[in-house]
């Protein structure tokens, strides 16, 4: 039995959010991943972000492909519909779902095997189409469910648990997302909740293709010396660009900031992304500079994290297609069926 419902009981004084839900209302079934798996921390961050934003859980559609990461949507937002689809094909299923109903929040969860190898094409095309979604890759550099093969994000020279050395170049999904025209690109680390939760919040509020590459160590197969995706390695080489606070429009800004440069980016929905810059030369609203910065820091052996790029006024696929504002799945016979008279005219024109 690998479906473990959580007991519903909770402390009566748990804090509630703006819609009266507790954090527990955003949870799912008990995880069946390995103890210490980075993916569970990401699930917890998603739960926290949705709770913080007071999102009604059932208005989220959570979709995934196949793999350890793709199992995780079962472990958060139990009141939301989920779809564990086909290996590498989450982006197309999510695109279709978004076409059917533009009013839901689409959260796609994928892994590095799912998105950088078998699903590289679908990852790319969903980004370049501007699907309004939050696309999270839980990136551990390894195939977990099939026990430890290298993935396409494994760094050159990275050593596998049994000693094999990776000789292929890595794919940097965040860099590629910037190149493909993603309107929100961030990278984070599953072990850095402080950084990750606000990034997920900002991505969920972003009305365009938001991509998050989250390095998430695999405790079973890729957390040893020689791995470049272990907890220790990532902590040592993490080069955070900025620290983010997300303010939804109705919130008054109460946080106090340490001295340093602060940049504010107002997203289309009115939410404010307040960035405490840790590297002053990086401008997160300049695509070319974002690209340059990723490449430069990579050459220096650092893993760039934080908000890499954001377009404050993104457009999304429905706008590109010129569809009606109502969800297509809500249209009825009157709106969809042209009727008998129109058909008679068509018949006449075909005679």
């Amino acid at each position: 039995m690998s479906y473990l419902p959580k007991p519903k009981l909770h402390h009566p004084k748990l804090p509630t959010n703006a819609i009266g839900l507790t954090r527990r209302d955003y949870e799912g079934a008990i995880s069946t991943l390995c103890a210490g798996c980075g993916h569970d921390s990401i699930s917890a961050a998603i739960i926290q972000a949705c709770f913080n934003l007071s999102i009604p859980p059932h208005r989220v559609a959570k979709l995934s492909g196949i793999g350890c990461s793709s199992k995780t949507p079962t472990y958060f937002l139990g009141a939301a519909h989920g779809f564990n689809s086909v290996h590498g094909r989450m982006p197309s299923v999510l695109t279709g779902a978004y076409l059917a109903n533009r009013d839901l929040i689409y959260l796609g969860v994928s892994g590095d095997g799912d998105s950088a190898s078998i699903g590289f094409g679908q990852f790319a095309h969903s980004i370049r189409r501007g699907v309004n979604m939050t696309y999270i890759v839980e990136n551990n550099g390894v195939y977990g469910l099939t026990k430890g093969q290298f993935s396409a994000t494994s760094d050159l020279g990275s050593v596998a648990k049994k000693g094999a050395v990776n000789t292929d170049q890595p794919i940097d999904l965040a860099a590629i997302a910037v190149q493909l025209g993603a309107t929100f690109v961030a990278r984070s680390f599953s072990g850095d909740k402080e950084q990750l939760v606000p990034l997920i919040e900002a991505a969920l509020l972003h009305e365009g293709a938001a991509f998050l590459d989250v390095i998430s160590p695999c405790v079973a197969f890729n957390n040893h010396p020689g791995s470049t995706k272990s907890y220790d390695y990532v902590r040592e080489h993490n080069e955070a660009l900025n620290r983010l606070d997300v303010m939804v429009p109705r919130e008054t800004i109460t946080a106090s900031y340490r001295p340093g440069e602060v940049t504010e980016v107002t997203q289309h929905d009115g939410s404010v992304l307040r960035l405490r810059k840790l590297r002053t030369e990086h401008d997160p609203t300049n695509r070319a500079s974002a690209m340059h910065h990723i490449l430069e820091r990579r050459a220096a052996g650092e893993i760039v994290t934080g908000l890499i790029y954001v377009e404050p006024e993104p457009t999304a696929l429905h706008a590109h297609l010129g569809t009606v504002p109502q969800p297509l799945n809500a249209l009825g016979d009157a709106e969809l069926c042209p009727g008998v008279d129109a058909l008679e005219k068509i018949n006449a024109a075909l005679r």
Partner: protein
Amino acid sequence: MPQPITATNDFVVKFANVNGSGSASANGLFAKSILRMGVPIASRNIFPSNIQGLPTWFEVRVCEAGHMGRRGGVDMMVAMNPQTWDRDVAEIEPGGYLFYDSTRPMPKSKFRDDITVIGCPLTEITNNAYSDPRQRQLFKNIVYLGALSALLDMEVEAVKAAIAAQFKGKEKLVPANYAALEMGRDWAIQHLSCPIGLRLRRADAVGDRIFTDGNAAAALGAVYGGATVCAWYPITPSTSLAEAFERYCGRLRKDPETGAKRYAIVQAEDELASIGMVVGAAWNGARAFTATSGPGISLMQEFLGLAYFAEIPAVVFDVQRAGPSTGMPTRTQQSDLLSAAYASHGDTKHVMLLPEDPTECFEFGATAFDLADRLQTPVFVMLDLDIGMNDWLCEPFKWDPNRRMDRGKVLDAAALDAAKTFGRYLDVDGDGIPYRTWPGTHPEKGAFFTRGTSRDRYARYTEDGGPYVDNMQRLLKKFHTARLLVPHPIATPAKEKARDGVIFYGSTSAAMREALVALQAQGIHLDAMRIRAFPFHDDVAEFIAGHERVFVVEQNRDAQLRTLLVTELGIDPARLVPVLHYDGTPITARFIQSAIAERASAANVLPFRKATP
């Protein structure tokens, strides 16, 4: 020399052209002019996988009796392509006619002495009349149309009316085309003996029928059926289906006030993404489809298994072409039946609809969405290149004004509140069809996890054998329910008591009906059944049981429908005699007639057995 063929309103004209030379437009005018004289035609394009330069043919069968299949044989060849001259000339029936451009003299050895040769200096005429090279090329086609109108005794007013209709909205072009038409017609009247033995005569045999192609009809069916999401990838011969959907939606599906679209069309990066988007959209409550051909079906296999197992409605228009592999991409076949019926790994079975002409493409194109929603499963509409890409004279489209979309068993928020329990895969009604919910419906109830992995009746993940088998059996039960909901077969009894029967489907139907008439004239009586869907209705098994032998006529090598009949109905294969045509050309009545007559005529005929190693 044999007597030149004489025939009125019953002959075949074939045009041999070079692809990209503008001939398609003139040939279409020829076809439509005849229809305007009230005489039925069946026309077919035989074209290469090429944009410009390779040979292409257009065949027009004039048939007042109304046979819409391909007849076989050519009574008049309009030979406009030097590349294919020899084979084109060889194809003419003895006593037939050859029309060609006589500007450049041809050696006598290039002709036959058992046909009538009609030369017309088309290049010379157009070179004299026009200076622009493109005009010379395009109007050459209209000039030969003019010459043919005189030779075949066509009503010039009918041709002019067809030209006017063709250039509706571009009226400026009409006078120039009239002039070219008259140029050819006048030359023929002055220099040739007009009319020849093949003649057209006004009739009243077209009625209110329409002239359209199956791809456009299926696309219109999707519009009427309420499809809102189309995800597709270009592939011959299905491309024009998605394009027709876009065209019809542009006219019929925009918000009249804002112009915003009540549909979304995405040209995907490949067929995997196309079907993925369809599955995602249908999961989320939209009516969604894709259009593809055999290679696309191969690529979609994994998703089709997911849609079957996760029970997601998806509509797939498969415009079949000749396989395997790239095969003959511009030639017709009915060779995807097995790959569609059992698409994907594991135990799967899929619903297939088998339209016979554009009228049924429209009807099934709409019904497919009701069936997919009702049955919560992929539904294939199996066109082929012959139906999909050729214009057919067929019954007008009909729509019942009281018809409403059947969205199937979908629970909304109120229904969820009223329900005692919700189990996504619970067989509440005993028909194998469970209830579903769309994402975002209710804050607390009805959410579930969709997956291709096994689960119990409440959509909870499990790898236990018991719930897995329980679910697979329910899917079988659902498929059994489907046989009653899909279009039923149509039986046509023979005029006299028949020992044998014949089963056919799809684009074979027109040729089959003609063959039945011819066979009957030969004294061979057959009860006939046209199958319109899979799974098979109970009538199919009864029909087979009622006959000693049943011929199964198909356009593929491996007798794919016969395999389905044997497998699904447990029929003794010896009783099902395959009649197979699969060279990529549409099957003809002549072929069927001779293939069946050969096996049926001898009284002491041995039962035909499939040669298996």
